[in-house]
């Protein structure tokens, strides 16, 4: 059986797949990769199912050893990866020889890098998913972030792997953005016209207090409706809550499933993976769009992600 040895975990590295939706009635957050598109592409590059368990590295990547070799691919943020000292590319299949060392450093651009390993990572599933949920210490590798010395068991490698890389046209279509498109949130009409205008006009800075639960954004306070809290209700992924002090919080994949702050807007489906690539200190803006446009974009993006001939060269 193949394995991967963690020589250095990096800043925050967890096992993630596409999460565990469907457990709302028992209070379970879907979790899953913060950038599910990068995770899917990494897996496809090494012949895995798109939702196989892989590593999600945050801001600073780790150092890993392949005792028996294996195929792997890196996607997402550029963390200056080297294999046995030689620089390697993102979005490309590589075959590591036995004993090879894969080393990553601090990010040069975005927040998260994904390392998919041929055969996937084998851990006990929690509610059908390998995703780590740090808040409840469930899923993944013992419910926690990886540490130095951890040894990850890998599944059986597919019999034949064709090395490839993601096409420039697909990368262009899926590339990160700092202007996120939003639809109106459930309480949008409770905010004043000024508040709503301010929301799409002003620039928001991603603060250091941002993680997989959500991004705390810094900007002049958005005037809140009165009263500033409401009966607790379900909150959707990508919702932008305005706290009583006027601060905006963009909910991420490990979000609480319910909340009592009004939501002014919601990031559209095709921009959710882009939220996963926003790092602290980055400045972003929001642009309003319609539900019909959001849906059309989603269908188009899913068509691309399910079409290997357009995705890879």
């Amino acid at each position: 059986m193949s394995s991967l040895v963690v020589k250095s975990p990096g800043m925050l590295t967890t096992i993630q797949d596409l999460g565990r939706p469907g457990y709302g009635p028992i209070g379970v957050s879907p979790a899953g990769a913060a950038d599910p598109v990068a995770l899917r592409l990494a897996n496809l590059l090494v012949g895995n199912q798109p939702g196989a368990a892989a590593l999600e590295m945050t801001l600073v990547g780790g150092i890993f050893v392949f005792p028996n070799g294996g195929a792997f691919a890196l996607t997402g943020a550029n963390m200056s990866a080297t294999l046995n000292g030689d620089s390697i590319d993102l979005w490309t299949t590589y075959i590591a020889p036995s004993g090879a060392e894969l080393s990553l450093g601090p990010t040069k651009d975005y927040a998260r890098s994904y390392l998919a390993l041929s055969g996937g990572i084998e851990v006990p599933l929690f509610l059908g998913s390998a995703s780590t949920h740090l808040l409840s210490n469930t899923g993944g590798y013992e419910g926690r972030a990886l540490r130095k010395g951890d040894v990850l068991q890998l599944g059986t490698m597919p019999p034949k792997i064709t090395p490839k890389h993601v096409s420039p046209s697909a990368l262009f279509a899926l590339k990160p953005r700092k202007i996120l498109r939003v639809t109106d949130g459930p309480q949008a009409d409770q905010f004043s016209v000024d508040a709503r205008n301010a929301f799409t006009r002003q620039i928001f800075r991603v603060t250091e207090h941002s993680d997989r639960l959500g991004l705390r954004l810094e900007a002049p306070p958005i005037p809140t409706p009165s009263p500033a809290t409401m009966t607790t209700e379900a909150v959707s992924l990508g919702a932008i809550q305005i706290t009583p002090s006027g601060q905006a919080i963009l909910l991420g994949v490990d979000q609480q499933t319910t909340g009592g702050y009004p939501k002014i807007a919601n990031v559209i489906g095709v921009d959710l993976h882009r939220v996963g690539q926003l790092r602290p200190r980055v400045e972003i803006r929001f642009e309003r769009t319609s539900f019909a446009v959001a849906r059309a974009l989603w269908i188009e993006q899913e068509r691309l992600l399910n079409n290997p001939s357009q995705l890879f060269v």
Partner: protein
Amino acid sequence: MRFCKASDQSLLIYLGDEISLSTHERVLKLLQLFQKEPPSWLCNIQPAYCSLMVTFDPCRVAHAEVEAVVRKLEQRAESLRRPKSRTVDIPVCYDAEFAPDLEDVARAHQLKPADVIRLHASRTYHAYFLGFAPGFAYLGDLADEIATPRLDVPRKKVPAGSVAIAGRQTAVYPFPTPGGWRLIGRTPLTLFRADRKPMELISIGDQVRFHSISPKEFSKLASE
């Protein structure tokens, strides 16, 4: 019934505007119908006090189609009998070592800690929904006499099993998580276990009672 698009992939269904048992019964019935016959496009469903949110696959349906399905289900819900509820009895040690906020809560209401304990343990609570963390049940309604707002600064880590209050709600923390509710006791029971059926100790719609135990009984139950 009122609909509201929460995102391009989710729809909020409001069954009332005020927290009440009758509104919540409609939430429970609709949830039950969805769980019995989950449509193929359904990704997730999250109930709360007066509402449910349905997350769907936008490649297969749009909001209008989801709305039509919900309207049909809601018609059937009316003839449905009230879902059966279990009664869950939770032993709680209200001893000072497990209750860092008990004194403050008592002081805020000019009560003795013993009064707070008596008021907390003398009611049957309704489990409105689970949220926040796996197995975290929002229980209501807490006696007005001890209703206390959340802490201004949440704790970074609340011990698992902590029994807490916030506003007119009470709950038990299933995992050591951050938390802003006021801690007035602790139960030795495990709130959420993946290898148990059901995994959650308290399910939506359950009736919940708390009873006071000594530190000795706590240790005994905790070691079982």
